[in-house]
């Protein structure tokens, strides 16, 4: 980036930030500088510089009352005069389109409703641009039926327990669970419902595409505490011996360009690699290796190697 372009981006960033910061401080009188900084995703020093900058902003004829007046008392920010910046501007087309694309990829009965609402929150003259841009981002297909997602979203918003029928891959069977749905989150290309499982007494992830059925329960729940959230993990730290795979050049290039918890053990001159993946089952390793059509194999631990070898022999038997 040239210096001129960078400077332009900086000034634009600052403008966007202060157009949010001023109304936010109006709405939250006495908000600590630290909180504002966290909300805006910048260091506290930047917020203090922004406040300094804002002191010089006003509207003609620039009498004392025509300036913005924000001051810091102790570490708390107060707004004395906001000069009509009491609410942020409408969404720009790219803000609305990015959010709409994210919402479409998750889905739910409200999917198109939220897209319309976002569109209506863009200035009139920019709505055609919003439409065009939204056609240019595809963040994924919803992980489950809209009706199912709609119920989960409803339960999250109303803090109502959910009864789900869940398919567990490792056991190949379905079971009934009662879950307090805390949130939905995405990792490595899959969506999960993260919530407290009543019977197991702890928060667990449930893959959305494995929830066969769900219904809202009458029971209400308390949201997780901050401490519980801070401890929250979608997956517990991978345990057990990591699985080691050998990959040919094509498989290695494909796999390593994608998100995943790979650890490259060794690379060869042709571009192939030996990699380790922690916390996966023998079944997963076999399926994964075979998905490279002969360009990858499971090396260790012995149980995984055995599982893989058996699968290869049994599959081969079908072609005789």
């Amino acid at each position, binding site marked *: 980036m040239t210096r001129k372009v960078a400077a332009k981006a900086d000034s634009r960033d600052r403008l966007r930030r202060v157009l949010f910061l001023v109304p936010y401080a109006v709405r939250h009188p006495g908000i600590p500088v630290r909180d504002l900084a966290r909300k805006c995703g910048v260091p506290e020093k930047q917020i203090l510089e922004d406040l300094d900058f804002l002191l010089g*902003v006003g509207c003609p004829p620039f009498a004392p009352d025509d300036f913005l007046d924000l001051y810091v008392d102790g570490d708390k920010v107060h707004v004395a005069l906001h000069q009509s910046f009491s609410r*942020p501007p409408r969404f720009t087309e790219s803000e609305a389109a990015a959010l709409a694309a994210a919402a479409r990829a998750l889905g739910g009965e409200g999917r198109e409703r939220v897209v319309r*609402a976002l569109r209506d929150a863009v200035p009139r003259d920019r709505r055609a641009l919003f439409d065009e841009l939204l056609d240019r981002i*595809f963040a994924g297909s919803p992980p489950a039926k809209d009706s199912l997602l709609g119920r989960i979203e409803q339960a999250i918003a109303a803090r109502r327990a959910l009864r789900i029928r869940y398919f567990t891959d490792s056991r190949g069977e379905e079971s009934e669970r009662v879950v307090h749905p805390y949130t939905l989150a995405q990792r490595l290309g899959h969506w999960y419902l993260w919530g407290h499982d009543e019977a197991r007494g702890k928060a667990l992830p449930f893959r959305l595409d494995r929830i066969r059925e769900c219904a809202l329960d009458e029971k209400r729940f308390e949201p997780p505490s901050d401490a519980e959230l801070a401890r929250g993990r979608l997956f517990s730290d991978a345990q057990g011996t990591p699985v080691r795979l050998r990959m040919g050049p*094509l498989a290695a290039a494909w796999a390593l360009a994608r998100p995943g918890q790979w650890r490259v053990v060794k690379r060869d001159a042709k571009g192939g690699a030996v990699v380790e993946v922690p916390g996966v089952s023998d079944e997963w390793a076999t399926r994964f290796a075979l998905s490279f059509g002969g360009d990858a194999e499971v090396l260790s631990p012995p149980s995984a190697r055995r599982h893989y070898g058996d699968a290869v022999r049994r599959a*081969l038997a079908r072609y005789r």
Partner: protein
Amino acid sequence: MQKAERLLDLAALLLRASEPVSWRDIQEQFPDDYGGPGEAAIRKFERDKAELLELGIPVRWVGGDEDLSAGYLVDKEDFYLPDLKLPPEDLALLYVAGSAALAQRVFPYARDLAHAMNKLSFAARAPGASEVAAVAALQLSADDAEEDARADAARRLEAISIAVAGRKRVHLVYAGAERRGRTERDVDPYGLYQRGGAWFLAGFCRLRQDIRSFHLGRIVSVEVNAAAPRTPDFEVRKGFSLAELATRESWEFRMHAPVRCRVRLEGPAIQEERESFGPRATWKDVDGGVVVEVEVTNEEALLRHVLSQGDRAEILAPKALREKARKVLAALARRVA
């Protein structure tokens, strides 16, 4: 006066005015900026106006009539973020989807998305539970591993996002998967799509003279045509559908003429297996199993998909592909023997 300050001053003036502000008044209030004579001052004002619009501040010119003088104004209705008036479950959808996307770090218009999420707290009354869910989503989805690589990918994606929005041509250095060498090419960026957790740029490749997809992780560097940033370089081809391209199964990539393939699955197919063959597959129950039929333009990809299912699945037709599956498995079996 600094530009950022001038833009805000101008916005404040127009927001406070109860009537359109004439060009002459604006010149008088900003003598150092727009006071000069003739075209140059107007051009500068027009550029500022365009930037305000990009920030979400729509400045309009209204012609006068008997009741109103001619001039510029910011329509307050069209400026302040309105309440979205959505039911709680829809707010949960927005909050959770937005936060999960933000947590990925690598998402088109990620910076804009962060602004949008901030604004959302003004656009909805009492989001309560949804906001808590959003914080949780952000935390759970965030991946601290490989932070540097992601920051790099995020920067490339941001540059491409800007090019997509402005329809500006990009110059890519691309590390291909099949040939290990790098190629350089000019691409008209049509759009961005995500698949299996990875982002792809879809666009018209001027080197191959066709629409191609580029894996973000293999884009070594990207340069956006910097000339005339507000003038588009290309039109998107008629009939192009990003969603269609993004939801193609790997065996539907066009590598050869279409071939009908049949695969036999043992036992009843569970939902996940059915979905794994895509919405265009047809299914037939047979004795002790299911036969699925798909149209394939990339046999190699179908072979991989079937092999990944182990002894649950078997290619029936065409014969040549069946034979290939046998050879691959025989070679693998020799290695484990």
